[in-house]
């Protein structure tokens, strides 16, 4: 495979695959700057009116605000619960603790629509539809695996003798964890928190079931908008999401990369 033509063919094919991975999404960006009231590509003229529309329409703004609020709360709750769970998973030798690892990652694998109808049934019974509590708890379950995986990986790279040293020097158990362990595994925790936020921020299926007219997240609003109208405001919303998630994911990726280099 090191000969010329095969290598060139491989590169050409992979370039097309790379384009196929990234280009379809990028089409949304020029569309959001169109001056027409329809989603025709390429746009014939340019304007920022759809952004003006987005930022002046209370329904879009409420959805954006709800998404940010739910995402931030999910990031906090999932990171705290997930980090605690990861510590237990890497340190406890007991059988039931190890056995629960698969269970904790199960929400990543079980089809979301199945979880969604179950949660919907539960929330109907306890009047939790369209509540902040409902959104945060339901999203946290889905986000937990994305915290547990990077934090567990960080903990595996952490030398526990450092914590023992702190204990010998007179630190309490909690003090040693807070001042020695947590700073050392911080990159894993930070990337876990970012991924938890993104998981909540992008979640559609469960949200479609547990939404109400009073509380809708941005993807739910977009889903309704795609099926109902062809207003390019949705392209503006999509572009904002793309920019926002790209920044977060790059941040998370580079925090992880830095951690690996330091080790």
């Amino acid at each position, binding site marked *: 495979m090191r000969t010329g033509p095969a290598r060139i063919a491989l590169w050409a094919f992979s370039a097309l695959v790379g384009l196929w991975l990234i280009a379809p999404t990028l089409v949304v960006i020029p569309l959001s700057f169109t001056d027409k009231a329809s989603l025709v*590509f390429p746009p014939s003229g340019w304007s920022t009116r759809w952004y003006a529309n987005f930022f002046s329409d209370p329904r879009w703004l409420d959805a954006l605000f709800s998404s940010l609020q739910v995402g931030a709360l999910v990031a906090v709750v999932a990171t705290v619960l997930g980090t605690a769970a990861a510590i237990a998973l890497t*340190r406890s030798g007991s059988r039931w*603790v190890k056995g629960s690892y698969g269970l904790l990652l199960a929400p990543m694998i079980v089809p979301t*629509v199945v979880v969604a109808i179950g949660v919907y049934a539960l929330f109907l019974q306890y009047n939790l539809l369209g509540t902040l509590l409902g959104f945060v708890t339901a999203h946290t*379950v889905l986000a937990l695996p994305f915290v547990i*995986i990077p934090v567990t990986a960080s903990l595996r790279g952490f030398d526990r003798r450092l914590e023992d040293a702190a204990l010998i020097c007179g630190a309490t158990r909690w003090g040693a964890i807070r001042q020695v362990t947590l700073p050392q595994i911080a990159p894993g925790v930070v990337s876990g928190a970012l991924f938890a936020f993104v998981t909540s921020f992008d979640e559609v299926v469960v949200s479609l079931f547990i939404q109400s007219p009073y509380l809708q997240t941005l993807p739910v609003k977009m889903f309704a908008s*795609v099926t109902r109208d062809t207003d390019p405001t949705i392209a503006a919303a999509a572009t904002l999401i*793309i920019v926002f998630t790209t920044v977060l994911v790059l941040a998370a990726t580079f925090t992880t990369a830095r951690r690996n280099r330091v080790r």
Partner: protein
Amino acid sequence: MAALIEIASPASGGRPRKGAGGRWGWLLLPALALLAVLFLVPLGLMAWRSVTEPTPGAGNYSWFLTSDVALATLVRTLTVGAVVTLVTLLLSYPYAYLMTVVGARARIWLTLLVLLPFWTSLMVRTFAWVVLLQDSGVVNQLLGTVGLGPLQLIRTPTGVVIGMSQVLMPFMVLPLYAVMNGIDRRLLDAAQGMGARPAVAFWRVFVPLSLPGVGAGALTVFITSLGFYVTPALLGSPDQALISQQIFTQVNGLLAWGRGGAMGVVLLAVTLVLLGLVGVVLRITRTRGGAR
């Protein structure tokens, strides 16, 4: 996903200390409590309703097994999943191979091209495909310029396959890359040193060694595709719905909790069986890794 789980599994590299078990276990409790209330209880509730509503018994399951519509939906879901798996495999294999032979800098870029869509909102990506595949969309304009006339893409299974393949690509590339990266390339040199042409060495040595990655990637893509809702709902047609769309309609539209629940249980069962297969594939990988 399976590959991610495998990589992060604490059992494969953690250093639990003997005798320190009980002290740390309680830290797991808050997460487990949340999981019990918002994951296990809902799944149980769904299963319970599938055998109690509208009347107690297995009526909903016998409906599923005798209804042409329900069975056709299941078959369609499995078919679309299989086609999507094949498409992603054909596109990902050369790409993942390239990732293992380039320099570090190129590899970072190739990885980013996979990771960015992986984390970009599913809703945004599906919306982009709606725009691209619509009757007057970019794809049809391009087809028009090469004389292939406008094709009906959106609201067809073809449209669903196109969108889902792109969305699921990362789940194929990442495990393929993880396995290919672990293959000892000196084996290829050895094969060539003994007279095999490069293509033969690749086909007879590299491809078989990469099969665990193919298995893990294919099963991950296939399993994930079975539960897809947003992409088929927006790119497909309602009368050619996949199982998740049917579940959605049964529960949200028709309030038929029993039937919706039964379909959910079937979907869950198929997923778990396939997941068992992933476990087998991964065990084979590990055995091979140990033998090497």
